[in-house]
């Protein structure tokens, strides 16, 4: 392809994109007035109906709980795909892998591992009261755990990031979400209907099924991300198969 052709193709595409962009922008509501009726409605009914002060959690785990189930399984399937593609064939020996970081890095880092995991757990636990929730907290927990590899070495991270241990945990989170949904079916209600009493506003005992779904997704996301990280790190440390 000559330089000229490429420029012509680029200009055509750029002009088309600019036109579509302009068209889309022209149709937007005025700046700062984008409140959709659905948002307005939920902001008013979520706290009285569900007793969760974080309306986002009420949407994610209740009003739109079924969407979240789908998202959970997207993550689940993606991680399953990564594991299938990257899992090395040969046995590995965790002892001889990775260099140990300096004392200073380890000293500061080990504290950050604990802090990271703790912040993650806190984000999950209070996800339906304050901003946060299963997804954010789950990734933070996994991030805190994976820090152990960066500030120490692979053998320190190995027990935490081992897929054999994490697989059941991930399945528990993903399956748990579906099971909580199915419990509603058994009680003669629609799938994922909020079963329990709403509890008292602003406390951990609020939101009915929301805390359980929140923890299920937190566990799923944390395990899924840890599997993902440890598979990638393993792929980096054991560049085993050279195909082609």
């Amino acid at each position, binding site marked *: 392809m000559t330089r000229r052709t490429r420029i012509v193709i680029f200009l055509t595409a750029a002009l088309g994109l600019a036109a579509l962009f302009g068209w889309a922008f022209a149709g937007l509501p005025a700046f*700062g*007035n984008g409140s959709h009726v659905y948002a307005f409605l939920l902001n008013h009914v979520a706290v009285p109906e569900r007793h969760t002060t974080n309306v986002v959690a009420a949407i994610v785990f209740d009003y739109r709980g079924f969407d979240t189930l789908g998202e959970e399984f997207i993550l689940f399937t993606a991680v399953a795909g990564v594991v299938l593609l990257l899992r090395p064939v040969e046995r590995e020996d965790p002892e001889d892998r990775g260099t140990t970081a300096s004392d200073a890095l380890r000293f500061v880092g080990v504290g950050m591992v604990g802090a990271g995991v703790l912040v993650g757990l806190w984000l999950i636990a209070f996800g339906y009261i304050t*901003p*946060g929730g299963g997804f*954010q907290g789950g990734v933070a927990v*996994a991030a805190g755990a994976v820090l152990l590899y960066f500030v120490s070495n692979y053998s320190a991270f190995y027990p935490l990031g081992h897929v054999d241990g994490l697989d059941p945990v991930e399945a528990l989170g993903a399956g748990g979400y579906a099971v909580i949904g199915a419990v509603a079916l058994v009680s003669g209600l629609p799938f994922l209907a909020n079963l329990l009493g709403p509890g008292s506003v602003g406390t951990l005992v609020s939101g009915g099924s929301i805390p359980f779904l929140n923890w299920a997704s937190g566990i799923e996301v944390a395990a899924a991300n840890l599997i993902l990280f440890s598979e*990638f790190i393993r792929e*980096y440390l054991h560049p085993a198969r050279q195909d082609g």
Partner: protein
Amino acid sequence: MSVVATTAPLQAVAYVLVAAGAAGVVLSRDPLRQIVVSGIYGYVLVLLFMVLQAPDVALSMLVVSTVAYPLVVLVAIARVRNRREDDE
């Protein structure tokens, strides 16, 4: 006056930073440097979401853009570089 309108100056700052950050990511040539710049860009987006009063989205952006995404890309870059060195 709506809450969104009262934070208009902050929003303007955040939008300018987002535009600058996005340009910075695109203009970085070295993938390794680009990953660091994209992490900083992630922080700028976190700032924008906070200013627009979407703390939940800001938290998601924070964990994804500063940990999950850079880690996966870093390992991929390291892997590709290793393979190139082996070939030489």
